[in-house]
């Protein structure tokens, strides 16, 4: 009976140990995946200021901040290519405040309603579809981040589409980059849909750095009333639509040490969370094993004492 109890106890402890190991593995795996979706701290004020390095194509340069101390090299990821002994891991991410872009993503640059300066709704879609009307405008920011350990060139391309073909919709737009460069339009002028739809830009991003773009559009309220009214009446019987598309393509820069973009601010916290979790789980496992061994030893000693 006692022997059965001891066997059961052992099996039980073994199961507990296995269970903790599984939990640890799962935690580590999830933390690595979910780390991608942590809130973007790119807007944080750095405790140790970084220097903003302009893109090589000569965009306007923002005033330099004091130089940051040099950081340690990025950790290597296993299973990747090498470069003079250093394993390359080129990767990039394009995202806004709501989502990370993948393929055929939808961003929120148009809306189903609009308010005037006093907060009153003056445009409202009747069927929940996004609408555009004279007087509406919007500003949208998206970011491209070099999440790898080598320099990347990131290409941004804007396309516009209007249906039906040959329809003129007087939407105007402009695109600017983080360092003040205007890719379409400028500070005082919005570009036509044709110019906006041909906007392209390439920027170099150092490892761990990012760039952001601001895309503005508007339909001037005081424009061509005849055209505006014609479009508003035309849409009663057929769909008259306007589409803005942005494509972001990143590829490895021939010089892996090329630089550009905005560095992530150093907050002072360099804790290696994964490492500590691994060590903590391993220590817990060892502790449980030791407790199990100790209890078994005592039982055996008790048994010997009883026999004698």
């Amino acid at each position: 009976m006692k022997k059965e109890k001891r066997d059961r106890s052992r099996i039980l402890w073994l199961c507990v140990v296995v269970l903790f190991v599984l939990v640890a593995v799962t935690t580590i795996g999830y933390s690595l995946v979910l780390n991608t979706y942590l809130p973007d701290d790119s807007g944080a004020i750095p405790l140790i200021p970084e220097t903003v390095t302009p893109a090589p194509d000569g965009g306007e340069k923002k005033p330099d901040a004091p130089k940051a101390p040099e950081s340690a090299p990025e950790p290597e990821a296993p299973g990747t290519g090498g470069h003079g002994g250093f394993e390359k891991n080129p990767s990039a991410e394009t995202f806004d405040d709501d989502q990370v872009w993948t393929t055929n993503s939808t961003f929120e640059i148009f809306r189903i309603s609009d308010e005037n300066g006093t907060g009153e709704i003056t445009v409202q879609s009747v069927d929940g579809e996004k609408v555009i009307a004279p007087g509406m405008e919007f500003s949208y920011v998206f970011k491209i981040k070099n999440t790898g350990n080598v320099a990347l060139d990131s290409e941004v391309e804007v396309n516009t589409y209007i249906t039906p073909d040959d329809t003129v919709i007087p939407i105007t737009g402009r695109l600017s980059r983080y360092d003040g460069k205007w890719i379409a339009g400028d500070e005082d002028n919005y570009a036509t849909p044709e110019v906006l739809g041909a906007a392209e830009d390439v920027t170099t991003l150092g490892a761990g750095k990012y760039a952001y773009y601001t895309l503005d559009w508007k339909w001037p309220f005081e424009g061509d009333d005849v055209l505006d009214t014609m479009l508003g009446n035309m849409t009663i019987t057929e769909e008259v639509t306007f589409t803005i598309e942005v494509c972001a393509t990143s590829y490895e820069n021939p010089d892996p040490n090329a630089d550009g973009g905005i560095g992530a601010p150093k907050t002072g916290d360099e804790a290696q969370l994964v490492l500590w979790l691994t060590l903590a789980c391993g220590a817990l496992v060892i502790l449980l094993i030791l407790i199990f061994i100790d209890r078994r030893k005592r039982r055996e000693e008790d048994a010997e004492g009883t026999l004698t």
Partner: protein
Amino acid sequence: MRKNKMMRAASALLVAVLLTTSVISGTFAKYVTTADASDTARVAKFGVTVTASGSLFGKTYLTTTNDTPGADDAVDNTVTVKSDVKVVAPGTKSSEDGIEFSITGTPEVDVNVAIAVTEDTYDVFLAPGFYDDVTTGADDIAQVATKYEPVKYTLWQDKGGTGTYTAVTDAENVNLATLASKLEGLTKTYDSNTNLFNEVGNLKITWAWDIDENDLADTILGDLAADANSVKGKYTGINDPNEGTTLVAGMDKDYNLNTGIQIDITVTQVD
């Protein structure tokens, strides 16, 4: 023996944890090169329509239709009034339909419906004063006590097109100035997705000249229409011994013989 097996098992598990960690982190390393996003919107609907139909005046007024306008070439034995131009006369009136206009549409934007009566609007009137008493044929002087505006207008409204018109409050049998004010009072801003036909509906204007209201003033106006010098006025009283003065036509003068109204309806998106 058991102790060794347990120890080995525990050690093996620990090693497995460490190996799994490195494998998973390697598996989730990414090589994302292209991403794209788009958004589409349609033009917000407007679709507001203003329509008008009918007429107020005619060259003939028919006895068979209760002295309302008839065809220009109506035969003489059917008319009470006939002229080469559109006229009004005591006892005549517009048809029951008058002039109708309507505003339809449900725009997805806020709109202002503005109804304006333009400056090309004038009314028949005779200013108050002392005039030749043309009803007696003698050299008497008679008084028109107040400004005489014989053509009385009515503004009707049928919200939602029910088919039943109702006279707009304080806009029934009024002079043209009051009618214009009431029309312009319908100017209003509507929220997006408001069915304008339900809010404004059909509007109609009719008029009538009561034949029994003031024979003296009616006759003076009729004589002046035939000959501008046929009636004198501006006497100081009914016993004024002096000669009267020739009257002057015009909206801000002694009399006017024309009536007409021009209405502009504009529906404009507001920001």
